[in-house]
């Protein structure tokens, strides 16, 4: 009996490099990266201020002497002020959509593109991809890195691709039925949409024959994984990346599925308290910060991802020696600090999902009426959850209360409210009102 659901295969021997050798390689590459960005205006100024030169990087601990880079810094040098190579060396530009309208651009040299493909191949193979497979990609191909990154990785492995791209779910379903890919690539939520359309057409998603799925591009939960795996009868793997760091390929799960292995020979990771910027103890949630070690066109130093997750350096049965990151549990932008505890709207949503099956409309209100912070979660009542019996209704409220407490660790007030009383906004609904801010308390 193998302890894994299928054969543990490793794409690149670098993934199992012993820690001491890996760290020596990281130091050497960090020095090279610091040298490479010395003429990038943002780093040039920051290095000059703190007297940093590549020779002063004597150990990996010296990373902490380097400046952080934020999304705002990238915006300030719009469009390509962070470029570290002459423009003729660039073979590709990608971008991430900004909520402010203008994307932030990133660039790749030919070698960067090859590195990227190799990193995607690593996690794809770790999660079951084999050269004989056929893969359907449901990510968009465009400025967004998801489609192209996975495409290159799959080509690198030698598997075949259906570049179906985003949108038109019935067509995706038809392609899956007719061409019978074994592997699905895209966002987890989109796979559920495919399942829903299949069911609407009287097709059992399990009959489609999908065996593996590689999901990324959005945060999701373990409960969602269970649901997707049950729905399709496949194994679903999580991968992580962001365009500022390279795109998909920063980390991904192996057969053991105990977190996502960070490709540490290409990226240095830190997990810090977003307020103090000090490292958090291993296992605790903090903001992930990445430094690229091999990128040529767009090297980045201590990039603050705003993604909250935890790190785990315990040995993995898959033999990879790299540190693993947990799922992204939230964004620093959404993080609420309530009575000293970090709470994310996504955690509340997960609790509601567990109790009610699908998340109802809700609103999180934070206030400090006296000395203590209070969270009130207002949940709109829906017909399927409503009962004429008081004890059933009280039990529902208590279940929500208990789930929220078990996920966030804090007590909240749960209020059941009448339907359609919460404001609906187009796009991303604003789920949080922090009255403490209005009162100038935080």
């Amino acid at each position, binding site marked *: 009996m193998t302890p894994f659901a299928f054969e543990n295969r490793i794409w690149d021997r670098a993934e199992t490099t012993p820690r001491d050798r890996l760290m020596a390689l990281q130091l050497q590459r960090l020095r090279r990266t610091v040298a490479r960005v010395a003429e990038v205006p943002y780093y040039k100024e920051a290095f000059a201020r703190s007297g940093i030169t590549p020779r002063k990087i004597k150990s990996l601990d010296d990373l902490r002497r380097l400046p952080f880079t934020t999304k705002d810094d990238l915006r300030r040098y719009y469009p390509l002020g962070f470029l570290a190579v002459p423009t003729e060396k660039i073979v590709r530009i990608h971008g991430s959509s900004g909520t402010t309208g203008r994307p932030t651009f990133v660039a790749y040299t030919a070698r960067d593109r090859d590195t990227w493909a190799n990193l995607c191949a690593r996690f794809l193979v770790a999660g079951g991809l084999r050269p004989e497979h056929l893969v359907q990609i449901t990510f968009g191909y465009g400025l967004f890195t998801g489609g192209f990154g996975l495409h290159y990785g799959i080509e690198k492995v030698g598997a075949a691709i259906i570049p179906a791209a985003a949108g038109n779910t019935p067509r995706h379903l038809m392609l899956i039925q007719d061409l019978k890919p074994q592997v699905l690539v895209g966002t987890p939520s989109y796979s559920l949409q495919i399942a829903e359309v299949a069911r609407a057409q009287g097709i059992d998603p399990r009959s489609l024959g999908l065996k593996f799925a590689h999901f990324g591009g959005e945060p999701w939960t373990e409960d969602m994984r269970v649901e997707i795996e049950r729905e399709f009868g496949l194994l679903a793997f999580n991968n992580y990346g962001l365009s500022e760091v390279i795109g998909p390929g920063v980390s991904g799960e192996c057969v053991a599925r105990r977190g996502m292995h960070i490709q540490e020979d290409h990226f240095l990771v830190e997990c810090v308290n977003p307020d103090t910027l000090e490292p958090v103890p291993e296992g605790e949630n903090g903001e992930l910060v990445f430094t690229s070690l091999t990128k040529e066109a767009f090297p980045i130093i201590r990039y603050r991802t705003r993604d909250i997750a935890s790190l785990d350096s315990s040995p993995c049965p898959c033999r990879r020696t790299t540190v693993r990151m947990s799922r992204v549990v939230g964004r620093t932008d959404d993080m609420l600090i309530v009575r000293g505890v970090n709470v994310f709207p996504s955690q509340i949503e997960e609790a509601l999902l567990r109790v009610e099956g699908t998340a109802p409309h809700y609103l999180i209100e934070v206030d400090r009426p006296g000395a203590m912070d209070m969270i009130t979660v207002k949940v709109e*009542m*829906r*017909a399927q959850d*409503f*009962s*004429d*019996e*008081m004890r059933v*209704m*009280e039990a529902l*409220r208590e279940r929500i209360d208990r789930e929220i407490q078990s996920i966030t660790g804090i007590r909240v007030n749960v*209020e*059941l*409210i*009448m*339907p*359609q*009383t919460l404001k609906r906004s187009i796009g991303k609904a604003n789920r949080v009102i922090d009255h403490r801010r209005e009162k100038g308390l935080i």
Partner: protein
Amino acid sequence: MKIKQLSVFLENKPGRLSVPCKALSKAGINILTLSLADTRQFGILRLVLKDWQQAKQVLEGAGLVVNVTEVVAIEVADRPGGLAEVLEVIEQAGINLEYMYAFTFGSEDKAVLVFRFEDPDAAIKVLQSKGVNVVGSVELFDRAKH
């Protein structure tokens, strides 16, 4: 023999009870009887009305959450001990009672008890076998007219 009852979810806030009442009044729907159960934070309004289907549409149209359940109406003499006798039958038969409320038709010397049982069909069978007067919806709304 069962009667349809509409339940409406309300927040326990000033003015919330008038939302369903105004909606029904505007549609010209009469309420035979009602009961309100409440906690500090929310309440459940239970309504018995003849045109329950239309009423459900009207209430949902007003943005309310409505649930339909079956209740049992029992007629008893409007005198001391009328309710106690029925409750004794229920108790002895081991029937699970969720909640109840009562009303009278004004001039008559009879009272109507509305019961929400876990299993209304089983309850009706037992009650009828003990000679309790279970009132069907046709009779109930007919009486209301007079």
